[in-house]
């Protein structure tokens, strides 16, 4: 299997415009092909969703093709997840996720905004989404939105992002920046190519109107370069801690921390198959202790 060496990305101009061009527009184009390659739930996410009690409602922020919306598969109807994404084409696929004929509930929206009553969800997941945001500030803002979406007393959050450290199964390797002097906890901005090798869609379709044939052989497969921020070891945890601090949430597990009545516990954080993840649980102390 050929190893793709990922090239560095140069984020210039307004990051929101940059993301529109280098993330959102691309997912809109590759939605169908992309979705056909994304069907297997990752184990830690599946087990997180299995652990949720009956009656919980949640947000999948950046749900893509909606592969997590039908979970937990063995307890349909006990847990309800609302999918949020920017790509209308991916959302059309997400609506039918699970192939059981059940329609999933999805919204077109932005992970940096809050279009719901704050704290109304019992849980929120953000899988392979925050790494598409082009600045540290925007990534931190996305984490804050997740922390604000869930209940301050029992909300649970699971975040997954791509790691610089890729496992042996990965087809990708990050450009070597050992000479570039990358600081610890600082990830790398890269572009990841998506090769749309099957029949081109969109404009080409109209041009070949009347011809049912495949396009001529000399047509190059179209390559879309998506922007990713690949996370360094410790960076995701540091991002969460910073976001918590800005929301005045204590990060210690002790519920009687001086002057704090709200906080979050880092339940687990680690690396799984080329991704970093962190699982969080919010808590609220009911009354001051120590009197």
């Amino acid at each position, binding site marked *: 299997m050929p190893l793709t060496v990922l090239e560095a990305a140069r984020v210039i101009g307004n990051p929101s415009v940059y993301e529109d061009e280098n993330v959102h527009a691309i997912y809109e184009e590759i939605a169908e092909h992309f979705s056909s390659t994304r069907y297997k739930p990752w184990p830690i996410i599946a087990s997180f969703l299995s652990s949720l009690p*009956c009656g919980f409602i949640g947000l999948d922020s950046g749900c893509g093709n909606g592969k997590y919306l039908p979970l937990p598969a063995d307890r349909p109807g006990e847990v*309800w997840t609302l999918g949020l994404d920017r790509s209308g084409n991916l959302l059309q696929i997400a609506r039918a996720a699970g192939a059981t004929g059940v329609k999933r509930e999805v919204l077109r929206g932005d992970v940096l905004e809050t279009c719901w009553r704050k704290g109304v969800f019992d849980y929120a997941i953000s899988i392979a989404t925050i790494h598409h945001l082009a600045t540290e500030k925007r990534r931190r803002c996305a984490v804050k939105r997740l922390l604000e979406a869930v209940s301050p007393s029992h909300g649970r959050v699971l975040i997954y992002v791509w790691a610089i450290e890729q496992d042996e199964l990965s087809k990708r390797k990050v450009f070597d920046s050992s000479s570039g002097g990358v600081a610890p906890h600082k990830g790398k901005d890269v572009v990841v190519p998506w090769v749309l090798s099957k029949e081109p869609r969109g404009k080409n379709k109209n041009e070949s109107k009347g011809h049912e044939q495949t396009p001529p052989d000399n047509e190059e497969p179209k390559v879309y370069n998506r922007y990713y921020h690949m996370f360094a070891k410790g960076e995701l945890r540091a991002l969460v801690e910073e976001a918590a601090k800005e929301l005045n949430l204590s990060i210690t597990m002790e519920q009687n921390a001086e002057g704090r009545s709200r906080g979050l516990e880092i339940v687990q954080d680690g690396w799984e198959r080329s991704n970093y993840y962190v699982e969080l649980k919010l808590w609220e102390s009911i009354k001051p202790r120590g009197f």
Partner: protein
Amino acid sequence: MVRLITHNLLACHAKDCNTNNFPLEFKDIQLEIREAEFNSDFLKGFMPKLEWKALVDTARQLGDTSLPLEQPEMVDDGFLKSLHHVLLEIHVEEGSMTCPNCKHVYPILNGIPNMLLAEHEIG
């Protein structure tokens, strides 16, 4: 689609729109009814998160008067069946939702509500 379970969670998030921004008002809507599997434990677990008045008012606007004005303290099977139908079986496929405060309109197209704001509308 937008079901009332979702509608009950959504609030307007346009710039400087922080009060009286819930519930959004449905306009020019097309409804579809689709059966969903009944699960009383899910409903009981979800009930504390509901804004009851918003749910009842919206259900009535859509022509469903099966829910009582006050959220009952004791829940029986008949009540849960009505709640199940209102929350999970009525689908708004087309139309829009308008903020009661700033009048921002969120369109519902092909069953998907578009909550995206233009750059200048983001708070």
